[in-house]
């Protein structure tokens, strides 16, 4: 359990109930190694978003703990944890609240005390990472949905996180935007936890998947293996899209060139 490099993210026995008594998480365990991309799959209402809000200390666990690169998430470490964990929320309009793209990307690092030329460099670099250089002076309102989602990713990349948490990253994206975002995620030198019920997307990007349902981890396996278990998926309201054949993916999941889809 105490292997040499600390895990990028480790969640141990996490339980949580909202103040109204509604219990959502019942002892969740989850590990993400450095540089690893893990998908968190689960039907609506499984507790995925609640879990995500624990990862940077917005919610505090009732029981158990969350560690980010060895650092226990708590009131004293919140600031550092929020730098290390970059959460990209589902609706980019929630994430992009400043009048211009550049200011929005600058918001995080500026909160961390970055100023002057460093701040500008930070912003330029983050926008470059998501292929949105030159859009800095635009209003988010004038971007397409896919562009807004990419800028949302840039807003957390600017904080140079060690782990990127993407909440339903592929939702509402057209096929090209979806592929562009996948390319970007693959190019980033960070660990990724991707919360989704887009199973092919998980297969394309993540070597390992965790299935969460009713506040508990039901399975944690290599993605292709998990997706091949249609019985398990079916028991937790997950279904592969028509015609999708997970066995054809085995061995190539998460690799930079993902699968037969494009190498015909």
């Amino acid at each position: 359990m105490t292997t040499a490099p600390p895990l990028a993210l480790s969640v141990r026995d996490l339980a949580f109930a909202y103040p109204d008594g509604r219990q959502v998480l019942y002892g969740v365990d989850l590990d993400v190694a450095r540089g690893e991309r893990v998908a968190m799959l689960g039907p609506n209402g499984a507790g995925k978003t609640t879990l995500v809000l624990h990862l940077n200390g917005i919610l505090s666990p009732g029981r158990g703990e969350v560690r980010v690169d060895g650092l226990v998430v708590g009131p004293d470490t919140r600031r550092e944890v929020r730098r290390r964990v970059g959460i990209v929320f589902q609706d980019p309009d929630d994430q992009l609240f400043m009048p211009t793209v550049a200011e929005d990307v600058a918001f995080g690092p500026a909160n961390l005390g970055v100023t002057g030329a460093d701040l500008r460099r930070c912003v330029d670099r983050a926008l470059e990472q998501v292929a949105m250089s030159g859009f800095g002076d635009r209003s988010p309102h004038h971007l397409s949905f896919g562009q807004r989602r990419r800028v949302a990713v840039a807003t957390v990349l600017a904080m140079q996180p060690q782990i990127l948490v993407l909440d339903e990253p592929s939702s509402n994206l057209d096929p090209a935007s979806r592929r562009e975002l996948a390319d970007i995620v693959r190019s980033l030198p960070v660990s990724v936890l991707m919360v989704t019920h887009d199973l092919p997307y998980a297969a394309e990007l993540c070597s390992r998947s965790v299935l969460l349902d009713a506040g508990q981890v039901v399975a944690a396996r290599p993605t292709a293996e998990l997706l091949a278990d249609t019985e398990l998926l079916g028991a937790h309201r997950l279904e592969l899209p028509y015609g999708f054949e997970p066995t054809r993916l085995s061995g190539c999941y998460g690799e930079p060139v993902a699968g037969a889809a494009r190498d015909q």
Partner: protein
Amino acid sequence: MSGSHGDGHGDGLHVPGHTVVHHVPAHAALLGVVAFVLVVVATPATEPLAYAGYALLLGAAVVLAGLAPALVLKRMVVEVPFVVFALLVPFVAAGPRVEVLGVAVSQPGLVDAGALLAKATLGVVAAIVLSATQHPRALLLGLSRLRVPDLVVTIAGFMFRYTQVVLDEMRRMRVAREARGFEATSVRQAKVLAQSAGALFIRSYERGERVHLAMLSRGWDGAMPALTDLRRETVRRGAWLPAAVLPLAALAVLTVQLTTSRGLAP
């Protein structure tokens, strides 16, 4: 190009252009408009010629800014509730009565209403010119340059950003209503509209909470970070001069008008 003058093409009310008026720095334009409005409201109701002078000045500004008169007229609709109020004044005010079209109205009320209407119209048109020639973003920067508290500027910034999001949401709700055969034709349907407004309020409120979460996630601790480093505008020396022309000219009109009317009075 006339098509591009419609609402919804630029950002907010902004009508892109490259005129003298457009190139005035935002903070100077803001000050210019405020100063002009102060001169207008300081003008006694008994000086109708001064108001005519101001109107000519503003008309010149509209022409200089290359704004279509139709656009200005269309945006003046916001003044309508005020006009209704002003029209009531002659009926409710005290004082000697005069007959206008066979109806007895208060004579001082009539003068006051006229002045009120003139002042309101001049202020509205000045604001229309300001909002059409300055990008909302530039106006926000202008406000912070004028040392308006950061909190106020931030709130204005959020308003600018989310008005657009909420308007989009409103448009989608309208389409959804109409797609199911709803047409607002009688007062009885007000209930549906009120429910829509309520739903929109709740959605906006929930969005506010999600935005707050996103802000917390990026290390926000209650104070907006200073992002001045990102603003690489430089203001030419003397660039503010055109903004001073309007209020100074208005002041000149007022002075001339007051001295001549006083000279004639005895």
